[in-house]
């Protein structure tokens, strides 16, 4: 599931502000012409409020019954022992303590997931940025390549591609053959505890098209005269990339970084396919969500799984917060001076 928008979050809330003040002005405007006007002016206002809630009602119902309430319930369940059939029994922090002190597989899954995020996200973003810069300079065929490179992002989440991946990285698969051809004998990556995780990470890298498209759109917004001015000053390509492209693109880079990081924490399908749903070999592809699924839905430890879900939620919130904090020192907003 691709989620979006963190960079846009900040700016989206920024755009609501002027609008809100505009309404205030509107209201003041309709109010001034006289008391008669105001009397007729008010009921429609209330009517429109009513209309707004009618439009919002599906969302309000969904947000409360399918989001807020479940979040609260899942927090409650995380302090209980619950197997779906017997009523939950309160055990305090037991689940959390067990997670971090008595469950090596849980810690293993945390380690695997972090390792995967640290490998897959930078590789994917570097490739996305590189291709975007290359495509931007292309005159003929740019749109073709843009679409073609984007295609894997739509297909990559499917079970079909995950199964192909498993076969390609299996014993005697394409990768094994290619590497054996140059004298590297690893065998099938998916059967090798040291390499299986990398195979899954490469599936993520394969889907670099989505961030690439976003990078490309960002590149096209950098004013051309900036590069021309730099050329006049004698700057070389590399210098221009470092001093113009990177800073001007940093908000988009930040957006992609947050987005891909959050998504990567939740990777499930490829790990499931590669390891037959068990996280092998030797737990090397036991990702956090895979273990959560196993605890909750295979072993029926719903309380424990709820605790894991909340730890994931807090971890994602923390990582996002840290990224936002560090962004102050490296993300450059060109129009900040205007505000």
């Amino acid at each position: 599931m691709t989620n979006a928008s963190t960079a846009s979050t900040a700016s989206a809330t920024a755009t609501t502000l002027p609008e809100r003040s505009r309404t205030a002005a509107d209201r003041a405007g309709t109010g001034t012409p006289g008391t008669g006007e105001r009397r007729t002016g008010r009921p429609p206002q209330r009517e429109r409020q009513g209309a707004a809630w009618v439009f919002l009602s599906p969302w309000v119902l969904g947000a409360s019954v399918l989001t807020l309430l479940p979040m609260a319930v899942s927090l409650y369940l995380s302090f209980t022992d619950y197997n779906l059939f017997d009523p939950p029994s309160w055990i305090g922090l037991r689940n959390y303590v067990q997670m971090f002190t008595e469950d090596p597989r849980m810690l293993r899954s945390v380690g695997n997931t972090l390792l995967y995020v640290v490998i897959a996200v930078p590789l994917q973003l570097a490739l996305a940025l590189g291709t975007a810069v290359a495509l931007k300079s292309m005159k003929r065929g740019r749109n073709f390549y843009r679409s073609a490179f984007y295609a894997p992002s739509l297909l990559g989440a499917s079970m079909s591609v995950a199964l192909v991946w498993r076969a390609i990285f299996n014993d005697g698969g394409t990768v094994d053959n290619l590497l054996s051809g140059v004298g590297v004998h690893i065998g099938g990556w998916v059967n090798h505890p040291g390499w299986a995780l990398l195979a899954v990470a490469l599936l993520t890298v394969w889907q670099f098209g989505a961030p690439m498209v976003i990078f490309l759109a960002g590149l096209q917004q950098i004013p051309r005269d900036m590069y021309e001015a730099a050329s006049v000053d004698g700057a070389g390509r590399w210098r221009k990339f470092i001093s113009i492209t990177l800073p001007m693109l940093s908000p988009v880079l930040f957006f992609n970084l947050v987005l891909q990081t959050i998504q990567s924490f939740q990777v499930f399908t490829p790990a499931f396919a590669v390891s037959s749903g068990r996280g092998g070999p030797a737990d090397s592809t036991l990702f956090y969500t895979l273990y959560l699924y196993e605890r909750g839905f295979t072993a029926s430890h719903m309380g424990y799984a709820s605790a894991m879900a909340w730890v994931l939620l807090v971890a994602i919130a923390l990582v996002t917060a840290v990224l936002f904090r560090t962004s102050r020192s490296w993300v450059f907003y060109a129009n900040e001076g205007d505000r």
Partner: protein
Amino acid sequence: MSVTDTAPAENTTGKNTTGKNTNASSTGSRRRRPVNWPRVALHTSALAVLVVLLYPLAWLVATSFKPADEVLASLALLPSRLATENYGTAAEGIEGVTLLQLFGNSLTISLGAVLGNVLSCSLAAYAFARLRFTLRGPLFAFMIATIMLPHHAVLIPQYIVFNQLGMVNTFWPMVLPKFLATDAFFVFLIVQFMRGLPRELDEAAKIDGCGPFGIFFRVVLPLTRPALITTAIFTFIWTWNDFFTQLIYLFEPDKYTLTLALRTFVDTSSQSAYGPMFAMSVFALLPIVLFFLAFQRLLVEGMANSGLKG
């Protein structure tokens, strides 16, 4: 990667080359145009990347036509003969459920989700984009925050609720939430699009006697069509590809989707199952590929805008 290296070169010279070329031709080098090596390198590397990217898909299609003894043994990409029997076996489906029914189940869920998302997200988006109501700011912020909420945080209680309602092993858990605008990403996408529509149209409709509902259905909704199509296609593809939710909620074979049917192959290691498995995989990818070919522009731009607008 060579793609990266050549890029800034092209970037800077892109505009100037035309100038240089005209100079060159005027001095008499009309006989032969100099080869633009950076450009050649650029196109070569783009082509190379394309080949690597498309290889798994080509492999999938080729393997789906391979006879059982060639699937793993043969190193050649192309099969020695077209083993169409794989598709025959795939059509029989799994555990007594035909491929057609699996396809139908996937289609029902995906179309239900599309209908739900387009309806509910556009309604909510209109309220956020155009109407005034108390708590609008905080509710909008909350909506945005739910975009980043990991699904797992609500998973188990949702499962309990659907279990209580007797909806486990039905399609409802996949479809019903979509009618309640739980995919906040699409609400946001449509809000952003609606904000770009000129307000004068609303005002004109209001003068003509339209209420908020009239404005929404007659003016705003028709103009929002591109965003609605983007929402529909992305919803279709993501629901079609979805594995986790289906894995949790559907467990009887007659309710299986294509994704779940493929999942049953995960445990098999017998060679004879490989051909049919990949034939079925081709079927599972087909609708996405067709959607992509038909709407690639809209999809690519929808993705590009998700990061930049607003």
